[in-house]
């Protein structure tokens, strides 16, 4: 008797629970992603705040916090590397984004006009985006090698003496820029291609009938139509270019001196080479604030452009 009623109870409860779960499916389905975001982004940002006003040390494997207030700001003001790293990062971003945008747009226009082999070009141009950046760095390190690399070998056959590339303070940053252009032009190519392929060709046909030549069609019809795509793509790539780390880590390590030091690499060094977790956190926090402004601006720009369309 008792047993039966217990079974009934659980059955009833289970039924109720399942109806409850089913009615609220949309809420608990969204819960995991919210929990992930909270635990792995909000909590870390909180930690970053706390770290940036502390000194941290592992004592016998246990983490010890010491509150130091705004000491790390003082360190920041006297740190000669930060201005160098900022300058290099900005220079790097501006140069690579401009070069990649021009090449990406050019390739997109050309591929959209190629009737045959378009799939082949598309596939090949996509490859650099999928190769591990560390492998890309290694590939270029082999090619840049002063003694045995293919670049200097070709220069030698042409009767020239190749430079030191990554070990030369004047060329180190240029060397990593070349690698970045090789790596990321594809990204802008893909975005631009999507834009180019959605252009209304009837319009250009009409213009041609009216006597416009190819250059005029691009200048007066296509570029105005592509402008929103280009602006959004540029902004997006600019933000992503600030992430640069892997290839510089591998090719130059930020050197010689600070000639190719960038902000991500410097923060890594402060954390793990100089083991100053607190100061590194302050630098990371400032980076987060600056980049957040960029992201908000990008979001606004993207919405604005989408509304205009």
């Amino acid at each position, binding site marked *: 008797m008792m047993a039966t009623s217990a079974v009934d109870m659980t059955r009833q409860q289970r039924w109720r629970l399942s109806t409850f779960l089913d009615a609220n499916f949309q*809420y608990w389905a969204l819960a995991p992603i919210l929990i992930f975001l909270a635990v792995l982004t909000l909590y870390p940002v909180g930690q970053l705040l706390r770290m940036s006003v502390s000194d941290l040390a592992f004592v016998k494997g246990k983490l010890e916090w010491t509150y130091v207030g705004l000491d790390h700001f003082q360190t920041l003001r006297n740190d000669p590397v930060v201005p160098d790293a900022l300058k290099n990062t900005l220079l790097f971003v501006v140069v690579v984004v401009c070069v990649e945008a021009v090449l990406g747009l050019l390739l997109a226009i050309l591929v959209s006009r190629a009737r045959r082999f378009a799939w082949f070009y598309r596939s090949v141009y996509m490859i650099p985006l999928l190769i591990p950046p560390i492998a890309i760095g290694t590939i270029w390190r082999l090619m840049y090698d002063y003694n045995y690399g293919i670049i200097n070998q070709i220069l030698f056959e042409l009767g020239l003496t190749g430079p030191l590339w990554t070990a030369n303070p004047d060329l180190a940053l240029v060397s990593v820029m070349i690698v970045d252009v090789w790596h990321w032009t594809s990204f802008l190519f893909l975005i631009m291609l999507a834009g180019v392929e959605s252009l209304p060709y009837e319009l250009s046909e009409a213009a041609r009938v009216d006597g416009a030549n190819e250059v005029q069609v691009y200048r007066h019809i296509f570029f105005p139509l592509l402008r929103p795509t280009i602006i959004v793509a540029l902004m997006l790539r600019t933000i992503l270019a600030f992430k640069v780390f892997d290839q510089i*880590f591998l090719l130059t390590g930020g050197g010689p001196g600070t000639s190719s030091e960038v902000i991500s690499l410097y923060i890594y060094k402060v954390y793990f080479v100089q083991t100053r977790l607190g100061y590194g956190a302050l630098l990371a926090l400032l*980076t987060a604030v600056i980049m957040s402004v960029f992201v908000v601006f990008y979001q606004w720009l993207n919405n604005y452009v989408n509304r205009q369309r």
Partner: protein
Amino acid sequence: MKKPGTWLLHGVLMLFALIILAPVVYTFLTSLKLFRDIISGSWAFDPTWRNYEQLFMSNRNSFVDLTRNSLVVGGLTLAVVIAVAALGAYSLSRFKWRRAISGLVMAWLLFVNMLPPIIFVGPFYLIARTLDIYDTPLAIVMAHSILNLPLAFWMLHSFFADVPVELEEAAAIDGCSRLQTFLRIVLPIARPGIAATAVLVFVFSWKEFLFALTLSSTPAAMTIPVGIAGFAQEYNIRYGEMAAAAFFATIPALILVFIAQKHIVKGMTLGALKG
């Protein structure tokens, strides 16, 4: 189309294709050379698999361990990311949400995708040390999961949006609960899209370096990129093995480009322009 113009067009496009392929081919050729052939500077050489044997068979390198770690990290990451992103994406794409909530989730993911990952390195290092998972694949899976969540979410969101609502309504009339509808109707229909997302997440995890570097210290957890970077820091550069390792790490990219081109374009550009 006029003939000369077409030739010029393909000439330029081929030149760019060559610029992209040449370094990869050069690395592959270098990986087949003995050291004496690398330093001799001549173009002719006897190909050999010695460098690959060194990578996987000798005690000097631990590439068997590193490959295992990369596979484990990539596999676990894609399982976690797909499960979490699929539920969330389905909920947001099919049910009514207040704009504030859906907008918040979308914007949040955008931030995760766009902010430089170096921001999270310090806190993740502390979390890993505190939870005692530092130098285990689990720590790297944690980092890769959050990094890949936005991409997976956006891709799956667009795939679920393509599933016809009528099918789900029919399933509901037939007595399916919402979870059953999701598992038995929506997921199977979206399977190609989910597979593409999973492959892309795996490749991104396979590629990732910064977190793999900072959350591991021994071959127990180190992934392939960390191992490759190790070569670069040695005093005597082992060119052949470096080339072999770099080419080995590139193989998934080469396979993927030819099997899932369309989906990669989607994954790459979706986050870009929808936001």
